[in-house]
């Protein structure tokens, strides 16, 4: 095990919790020998990317959504809009490599997705990697069980320098972030997201049947605590 673990419960605001992700990149650049694994949760919110934030109707739509109990937070990793909350587990891994040795986009996604799948298999499940069309924030490295997405993965990268004993080295810091819907009323989050997107001038409809929580897909057999334990066990035996 070469990484350090940080756990975080929902803080004062979802915005602050999500912004804290960016500090991980700085920390990884400062100490490339010690990647950081962060397991965290946020208070209830709709997470979107900056692409939406420049639309003229974004601000009034976000204010209206917040008044309904669904504040809108702009995240700095890639991807599309998605509902999150205290019943969503976020898993982040920040690491820095010399620029010529940094993993490519696909390699970083694959490595991270394989690790999460190892943990799901250890829980007796049969995860599959591949885009789930119609889901929130779809991507080639979605993780699904029985055709229903439970995990989405995105990345953020920053180029920088690490000052070592032999001078400065050009580095690439990579933050890979997964969100896993553990339990709760996912449909309510999707309803809130669709309403916000319509009001923001970017209407979208999602296929509810192609997404689910770990709890509903496993009929309660696999809890969040069990998955977390499996995840850390898989991480302990792997080089993240």
């Amino acid at each position, binding site marked *: 095990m070469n990484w350090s673990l940080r756990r975080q419960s929902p803080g004062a605001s979802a915005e602050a919790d999500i912004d804290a992700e960016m500090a991980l990149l700085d920390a990884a650049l400062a100490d490339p020998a010690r990647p950081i694994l962060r397991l965290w949760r946020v208070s209830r919110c709709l997470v979107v*990317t*900056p*692409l939406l*934030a*420049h639309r003229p109707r974004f601000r009034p739509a976000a204010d209206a959504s917040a008044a309904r109990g669904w504040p809108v937070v702009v995240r*700095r*990793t*890639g*991807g599309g809009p998605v509902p999150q909350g205290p019943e969503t587990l976020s898993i982040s891994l920040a690491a820095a490599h010399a*620029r010529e040795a940094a993993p*490519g*986009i*696909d390699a970083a*996604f694959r490595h991270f997705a394989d690790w999460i799948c190892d943990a799901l298999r250890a829980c007796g499940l049969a995860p599959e990697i591949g885009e789930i069309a119609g889901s929130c*924030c779809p*991507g*080639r*490295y979605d993780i699904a069980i029985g055709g229903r997405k439970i995990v989405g*993965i*995105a*990345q*953020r*990268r*920053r*180029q920088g320098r690490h000052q070592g004993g032999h001078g400065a080295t050009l580095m690439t810091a990579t933050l890979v972030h997964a969100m896993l819907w553990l339990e709760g009323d996912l449909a309510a989050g999707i309803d809130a997201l669709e309403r916000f997107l319509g009001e923001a001038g970017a209407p979208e409809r999602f296929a509810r049947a192609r997404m689910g929580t770990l709890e509903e897909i496993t009929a309660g057999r696999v809890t969040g605590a069990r998955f977390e334990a499996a995840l850390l066990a898989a991480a302990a035996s792997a080089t993240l």
Partner: protein
Amino acid sequence: MSTPVPVPRDLWEEDLPGIVSAWLFEDGDTVSEGDLIAELMVEKTSYDLTAPKAGRLRILVQPEIPFQRGDVIASIE
């Protein structure tokens, strides 16, 4: 003299198109060398783009318009 701001060819390896997800300055703003001027996105992956020199930023590619690695998306006068 105007300095082009290309998307570095080594920013990612795969042959994938990118987009600007956000310009962090307005067209015509004055920027300093090293300022984070834009966020780029390639297949659910975001990248920082910093200013190569100080000057006045001219935005050439608007958000959501696809580009390739190496394309010039801004200039600094």
